[in-house]
């Protein structure tokens, strides 16, 4: 079974530029999560999708971050414009369905550096 795929793996941009990350969850997984992991910290949830609907985006900085999951499969996370403090690893995770005991499977992450 293929795991969660993310691209690109690395991205370097200047502040105020825009950037987009892509995630392809495990086939059949209806729930998709984006986390932000700043160096030296644990991941922080940004947004959760169930199919193509948003379940929780309470920690998403909506003035600059946006995310979508068209057709309930792939998802993109965008930052526009980027700030220095956005430098982090962006992790995508998926699970078969909502339900607190269900395992979340994580992708390799996209490491973003904002100069």
């Amino acid at each position, binding site marked *: 079974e293929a795991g969660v795929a993310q691209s690109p793996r690395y991205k370097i941009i200047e502040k105020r530029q825009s950037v987009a990350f892509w995630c392809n969850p495990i086939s059949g997984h209806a729930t998709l999560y984006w986390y932000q992991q700043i160096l030296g910290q644990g991941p922080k949830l940004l947004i*959760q999708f169930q199919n193509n609907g948003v379940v929780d985006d309470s920690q998403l900085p909506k003035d600059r971050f946006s995310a979508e999951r068209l057709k309930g499969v792939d998802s993109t996370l965008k930052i526009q414009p980027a700030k220095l403090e956005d430098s982090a690893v962006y992790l995508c995770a998926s699970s078969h369905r909502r339900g*607190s005991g269900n395992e979340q499977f994580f992708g390799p992450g996209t490491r973003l550096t904002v100069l």
Partner: protein
Amino acid sequence: AQTVTQSQPEMSVQEAETVTLSCTYDTSESDYYLFWYKQPPSRQMILVIRQEAYKQQNATENRFSVNFQKAAKSFSLKISDSQLGDAAMYFCAYRIHSGGGADGLTFGKGTHLIIQP
């Protein structure tokens, strides 16, 4: 809001020895799940072990076991017979039992585990 605290930024253990990683959490909920995740260097995060708060019995997965103290809000991970492949960042995480609603994980800051050969 729920919080998860890992007070040990780094731990070191000799190969084949036993090590315990600490985690405390704060919540007003009575029904929730706790997890330990492993993040090897430059590799993706994987689930090590899971504990359901309503179960009194501590979870065990091969060499990995937990000591879950609900009243104290403590959830430690014990790794027995440590192996070189256990070297990684270990994250403690909490998730409310949402009944189908929002169920993102709340993570601690992690403990860097070093295995000395």
